């Protein structure tokens, strides 16, 4: 057994936590003395640290071979205290700033000071979400920073790897149902010494990944970034002195904590906020899934947020579903990461955010649920599937606070899942390959409270959304684009509509074996929501593909091609145009391999809407129809906007007809609607009879079993006896 008294860093970590507990301030820093003494110097040094991070990340992106890192920026770097708390960070996938913090603390708590030892020049790596990351492709590297023999901090970097060596190709290993099929794990491992990555580690990567060039060069990029930051920090300490640095770094974090509390008090209203979302997981009939549990699952994700009078944000996931034999589970590190990245976007966008912001929050993730599995063999490779909808709810809850307080320009209906494509097999060059396609980084955003959402320009996990260049993606996969277009109506309807998403269509090219897999794709339910009367975005779109298509013959005959499935959900333009085997697939796309001549399309998601649809500006709507963001049918049926054509045949709002149509629709609303009390009385009979689809009934039974509060509130709402139970067995 390790002698814990011989671990000074571990003692320091425990001491830091004790001081926080006792004083309520980070590491017992009750006064920002350095800031008071010389605020200009304080701010200058903070900005300097931030600049070290931004500069190191940009340098590293140019070392990487991965289009995910080079093009899309799937990377973040940060500087930490010796105890593993983030002081400063770069832009990029900021979700990992706090997950890396957990990784460092995990090593400290687990006696790494004695074995394998923490020395100058060491490199440690991790992609185990139960230690500290979100999912298997998020591989992080940290190096200790020593100054004249004293550990003064850590430099860390994360890249999202495009290939993780799992049961299905790519990084988000959709088919993984347990840890053992997720891919190559590096569990808080010392992978290098003296600033050099070990050869045997590289060999392991080369022999266990479908496309090791991405992972291995990303390792070099991350190590270079860490060394760059390390040397900058050492130089800074030479300038300001060790004692000053040690106090300064802690004051930065305490300042971050106080800033977050103050920002909450400035922008929101104290109280209790509630919301929910759902996710449909359907695998029935899909090849490859082991029969470890029921194939189909409906997830409810209720969230209660309390804003205390101090300004602390408390999130509570009580009432959600148990973890399962699928890849969408999340660990506490991932849940923290989701909170952190959301806060950085909504309340700490000035660039000086650090772990202090996270310390001003609390989160209840019930043990045994997907948010905190009680079995560390659970797979987490596609945890974003549930994380994104969950933190989309958090964004809506915060936004209600912004609206109440008057900061309407900050209110935002929230992020959506933007399903990813993973692929592997034989490349167009005849070699083995594996890759994740990251154009999904440009989904539609939720609407704002004062304008439409961003079209094809937002995802929750990377605030610098970038879809990359088509030409670069085409170099890396055996498919060529034959279409990429806006998906009309993909933003939720409302006074302000959600941002629209896009759809890509590819011709599989120069391969006889291409495995295509998608993930983070909800089935049968929308996994987002609207706000203040806005509707959810349609986020359960099906995949369309054509096997053995006649596209080459059509092209030779110079006949028109279909470049997208079109706007008829019951008969696609592919079916109208191409001969071949037509494929419709709901949820994750897992099928037999494709080959040259097949056509595959994949739609991303738009965001939810804001406000009553009947208040939408008719002129703006006419422009939307002209530009393909809305269909004429939706404009009339959903928004009540009548369009005519101008002299050039462009849609033009008919204001008088619109006013009349909307008056009719308002009358229709009141005619159709019933008092809520009446609906509750009717619906109660259905609940009493447990008259639900099997998956819905199972969802209720699971939630009630795990959460006495959910059970109590459910029965109270419907006026049911305390011993009521939903019929059936889980």
């Amino acid at each position, binding site marked *: 057994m390790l002698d814990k008294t011989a671990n000074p860093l571990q003692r320091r970590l425990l001491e830091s936590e004790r001081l926080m507990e006792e004083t309520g301030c980070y590491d017992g820093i009750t006064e920002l003395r350095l800031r008071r003494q010389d605020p200009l110097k304080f701010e200058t040094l903070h900005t300097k640290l931030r600049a070290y991070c931004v500069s190191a990340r940009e340098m590293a992106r140019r070392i990487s071979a991965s289009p995910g890192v080079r093009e899309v920026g799937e990377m973040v770097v940060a500087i930490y205290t010796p105890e593993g708390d983030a002081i400063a960070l770069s832009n990029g996938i900021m979700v990992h700033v706090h997950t890396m913090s957990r990784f460092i603390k995990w090593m400290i708590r687990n006696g790494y000071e004695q074995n394998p030892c923490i020395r100058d020049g060491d490199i440690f790596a991790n992609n185990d979400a139960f230690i500290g990351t979100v999912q298997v492709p998020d591989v992080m590297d940290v190096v200790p920073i020593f100054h004249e023999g004293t550990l003064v901090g850590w430099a860390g970097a994360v890249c999202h790897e495009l290939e993780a060596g799992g049961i299905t190709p790519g990084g988000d290993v959709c088919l993984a149902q347990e840890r053992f099929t997720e891919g190559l794990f590096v569990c808080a491992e010392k992978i290098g010494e003296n600033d050099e990555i070990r050869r045997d580690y590289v060999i392991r990567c080369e022999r266990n990944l479908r496309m090791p060039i991405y992972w291995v060069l990303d390792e070099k990029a991350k190590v270079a970034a860490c060394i760059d930051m390390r040397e900058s920090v050492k130089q800074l300490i030479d300038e300001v002195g060790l004692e000053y640095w040690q106090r300064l770094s802690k004051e930065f974090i305490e300042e971050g904590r106080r800033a977050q509390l103050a920002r909450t008090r400035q922008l929101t209203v104290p109280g209790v906020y*509630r919301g929910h979302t759902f996710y449909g997981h359907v695998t029935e009939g899909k090849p490859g899934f082991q029969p470890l549990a029921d194939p189909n699952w409906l997830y409810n994700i209720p969230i209660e947020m309390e804003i205390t009078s101090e300004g602390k944000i408390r999130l509570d996931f009580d009432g959600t579903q148990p973890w399962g034999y699928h890849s969408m589970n999340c660990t506490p590190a991932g849940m923290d990461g989701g909170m952190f990245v959301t806060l950085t976007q909504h309340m700490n966008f000035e660039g000086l955010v650090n772990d202090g912001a996270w310390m001003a929050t609390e989160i209840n993730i019930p043990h045994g649920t997907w948010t905190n599995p009680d079995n560390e063999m659970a797979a987490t490779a596609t945890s974003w599937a549930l994380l994104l909808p969950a933190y989309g709810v958090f964004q809506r809850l915060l936004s209600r606070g912004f609206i109440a307080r008057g900061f309407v320009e900050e209110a935002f209906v929230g992020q959506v899942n933007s399903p990813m494509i993973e692929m592997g097999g034989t490349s167009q060059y005849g070699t083995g390959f594996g890759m994740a396609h990251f154009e999904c980084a440009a989904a539609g955003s939720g609407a704002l409270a004062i304008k439409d959402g961003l079209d094809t320009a937002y995802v929750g996990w990377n605030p610098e959304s970038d879809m990359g260049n088509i030409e670069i993606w085409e170099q890396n996969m055996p498919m060529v684009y034959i279409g990429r277009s806006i998906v009309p109506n993909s933003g939720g309807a409302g006074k302000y509509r959600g941002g629209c998403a896009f759809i890509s269509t590819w011709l599989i090219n120069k391969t006889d074996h291409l495995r295509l897999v998608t993930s983070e794709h909800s089935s049968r339910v929308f996994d987002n929501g609207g706000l203040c009367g806005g509707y959810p975005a349609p986020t359960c779109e099906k995949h369309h593909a054509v096997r053995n298509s006649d596209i080459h013959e059509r092209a030779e005959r110079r006949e028109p091609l279909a470049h997208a499935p079109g706007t008829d959900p019951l008969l696609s333009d592919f079916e109208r145009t191409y001969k071949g085997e037509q494929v419709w697939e709901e949820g994750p796309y897992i099928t037999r391999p494709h080959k040259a001549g097949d056509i595959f399309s994949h739609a991303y998601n738009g965001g939810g809407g804001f406000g009553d649809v009947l208040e939408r500006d008719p002129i703006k709507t006419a422009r939307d129809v002209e530009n393909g963001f809305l269909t004429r049918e939706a404009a009339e049926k959903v928004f009540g906007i009548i369009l005519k054509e101008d002299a050039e045949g462009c849609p033009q709002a008919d204001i008088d007809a619109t006013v009349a149509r909307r008056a009719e629709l308002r009358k229709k609303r009141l005619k159709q609607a019933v008092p809520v009390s009446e609906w509750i009385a009717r619906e109660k009979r259905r609940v009493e009879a447990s008259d639900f689809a099997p998956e819905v009934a199972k969802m209720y039974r699971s939630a009630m079993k795990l959460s006495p509060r959910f059970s109590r509130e459910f029965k109270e709402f419907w006026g049911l006896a305390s011993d009521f139970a939903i019929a059936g067995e889980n």
Partner: protein
Amino acid sequence: MTEYSKEVINDLVNGALPWPQTRRIMSAYKDDDRFFKYLAVLQDRVAWSDPILLPVGDRLFICDSAEGRLTRCECGYSFGDYRRNWKLKAVINVRDTEESLREIYPNSDIPDPKWMEIREFFCPECAHLHEVEAAAPGYPIVHDFEPDLEGFYRDWLGKPLKDLS
């Protein structure tokens, strides 16, 4: 201290402020006097005179009235005591068939109505659509927001509300 005129706040709230100006407001330090200017803008918008204490939706407000603190629609309809879920006094339309879902999603794939329904909560007076819930059948109606109204005015704004007792 950052400060904007009531006219600017009015345009901002109504989505009528030019984007470059809106963008500057988003990037700037926040204006600490926003809340009461915001209330004044909203008060001008409603036809009734009960003072608005807190907006809780796009056209939904907690106001002070002779009957106590109520949740009111912009049209004046009262949803009752602000501490109760206003939705229980609304009228509801539930889209739980493919046909009714298709009305809102004419060109997209729709949820399976056995798994999810769309609930629309309207004002019984003016038919304004105040909130939409997308939920599994049987899911309790959510009470979206229970503000700590007293604490907000007392501790955060430094202007305690008058004691109702």
